[in-house]
């Protein structure tokens, strides 16, 4: 058998281009559906794991998928905004711990996530360097964000304006990096976490400016009516919160009317969860409550359906490839009829000659399948990291 394999090897090596094309075709046709299966499976697991770890999400009525993608993966457009009253209402039910989220702004391409310290406990995020945010204007970076932005505790990060043409819009806020989180291999790694109030500062809803009662601000004052001072546009607004100016930052209006993009509801038990779901079912309800796992399962159902079509298409391509390969081998045998006759004439054993021809096919097939297996194993091994990279990018 060793001699037959040697002859088969010599034949394939001599016709190396043909062998390469055939082996490559077989490798690809086996690898593509296998890799697709592995990657879709791993993506599904990665997405589902995050969704499973988030019991309920409450937000303004709108697209449930947008609400989930924004709140869990900090992706998609900002969903319809709700107000902080949503969190207050949830807390008052006594059924769940509310964790408000305001995901709207960005800092150098990284999402700024306005939330409370409860988020870190809920997601089991650990601080690797520095500490969590303690005062207004501080931020905590996810590990990938810190690495990507090359920042460490003590450095500063400026939020990006929503639009350079929006002069009346969001002004950049220079934030101090208080800490960096340990990697969690989730979307949190790419995020810049700030206190909810800091997010509102970025939006300009909470602001600080020079003391209008001070003599150096006299030129900016237009009118004084009792405690109310009206100033012109030249009044200095602070775009960095420091120990010196933090006292000047103040809210206008009712905190309950301030925006949030979603509130994570962490029910105390299953019963509380069920009751909560019911409370947002009523007609005229302006909010929605969703189970992220349900939403993601529906999304993945669509993905799997598409995957099914792709696999079916690949199966047809595989069939065509197999037919072509068979044709190539058959034509090759016809071309080699004289060679086979020579071996018969000099007394080659029928079994050896047959084994030679079969082993050539088998070597190509087995090599193709083994290569595809190795590539699939590599995909399986490193695909997860790639998916995480995609999910956190």
């Amino acid at each position, binding site marked *: 058998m060793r001699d037959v394999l040697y002859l088969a090897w010599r034949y394939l090596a001599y016709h190396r281009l043909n062998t390469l094309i055939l082996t490559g075709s077989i490798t690809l046709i086996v690898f593509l559906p296998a890799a697709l299966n592995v990657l879709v499976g791993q993506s599904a697991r990665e997405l589902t794991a995050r969704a499973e770890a988030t019991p309920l999400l409450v937000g303004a009525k709108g697209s449930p998928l947008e609400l989930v993608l924004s709140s869990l993966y900090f992706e998609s457009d900002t969903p319809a905004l709700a107000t902080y009253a949503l969190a207050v209402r949830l807390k008052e039910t006594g059924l769940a711990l509310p964790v408000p989220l305001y995901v709207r702004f960005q800092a150098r391409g990284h999402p700024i996530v306005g939330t409370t310290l409860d988020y870190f406990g809920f997601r089991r995020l650990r601080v690797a360097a520095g500490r969590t945010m303690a005062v207004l204007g501080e931020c905590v970076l996810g590990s990938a964000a810190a690495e990507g932005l090359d920042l460490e505790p003590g450095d500063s990060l400026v939020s990006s304006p929503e639009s350079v043409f929006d002069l009346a819009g969001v002004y950049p806020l220079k934030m101090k990096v208080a800490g960096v989180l340990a990697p969690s291999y989730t979307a949190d790694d790419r995020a810049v976490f700030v206190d909810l109030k800091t997010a509102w500062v970025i939006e300009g809803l909470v602001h600080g400016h020079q003391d209008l009662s001070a003599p150096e601000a006299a030129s900016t004052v237009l009118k004084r009516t009792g405690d109310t001072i009206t100033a012109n546009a030249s009044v200095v607004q602070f775009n960095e919160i420091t120990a010196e100016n933090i006292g000047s930052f103040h809210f206008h209006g009712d905190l309950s009317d301030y925006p949030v993009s979603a509130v994570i509801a962490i029910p105390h038990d299953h019963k509380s969860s069920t009751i909560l779901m019911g409370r947002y079912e009523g007609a005229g309800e302006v909010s929605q409550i969703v189970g992220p796992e349900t939403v993601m399962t529906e999304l993945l159902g669509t993905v799997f359906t598409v995957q099914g079509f792709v696999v079916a298409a690949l199966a047809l391509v595989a069939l065509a490839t197999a037919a072509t390969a068979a044709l190539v081998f058959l034509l090759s045998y016809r071309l080699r009829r*004289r060679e086979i006759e020579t071996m*018969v004439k*000099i*007394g*080659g*054993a029928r079994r050896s000659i047959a084994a030679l021809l079969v082993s050539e096919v088998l070597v190509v097939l087995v090599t193709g399948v083994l290569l595809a297996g190795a590539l699939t194993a590599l995909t399986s091994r490193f695909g997860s990291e790639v998916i995480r990279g995609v999910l956190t990018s």
Partner: protein
Amino acid sequence: MIEISNLRFRYPEGEFALDVPELVVERGERVAVIGPSGSGKTTLLHLVAGIRTPQAGRVVAREVEVSALDEAGRRDFRIRYLGLIFQEFELLEYLTVLDNILLPYRIAPILRLGRDVRERAAALACAVGIGDKLRRYPDRLSHGERQRVAVCRALLTQPDLLLADEPTGNLDPANKGKVLEILLDYAEAHGATLVTVTHDHDLLPSFARVIDFKDFYDLSGGSGEGGER
């Protein structure tokens, strides 16, 4: 060495028939077979080698009734005891000179390929003047060199019966002489029997006996046309 009696052969697809009432070739004899194209010279070699079997009669070679062996037996007989040389060399393009010479040992389990065989192959190649071309592929050899490779392949098993089908048919005069000399030298040295089909009457003086094949060619049942048989 070869005894043929009352042999009758007919191709199933044609009218050609070969009748050989009796033919004897002694051990160590050097015989040239001549005759017009289509007279059945190649067919006779195939019958002696067991590549084809007659409808009637006996073919005995090396005291073995070849025509009575089954197919596997005939193949084993050929590869073990016969050296076959063809006009078209019949080398495998994807094998080097050395691998082409060693081919019989790779396609027949009854032969065992060992170091001694490899050494013998190299020595044969050196003896016929292609010792420095063992790693070359056939397409990098001249016609004469290719036929010498084919001769080495036939001689490697050290057969005592050589059947050569126009071995010099495609060679220039210099190579004709060289190849024939190799075959005759081997036959002389090993006491082997050499039966050579040839159209080249210039070579006939090198042989002890010449068999004119027109004696066995039977056209009574139809034409012998259609080229060499």
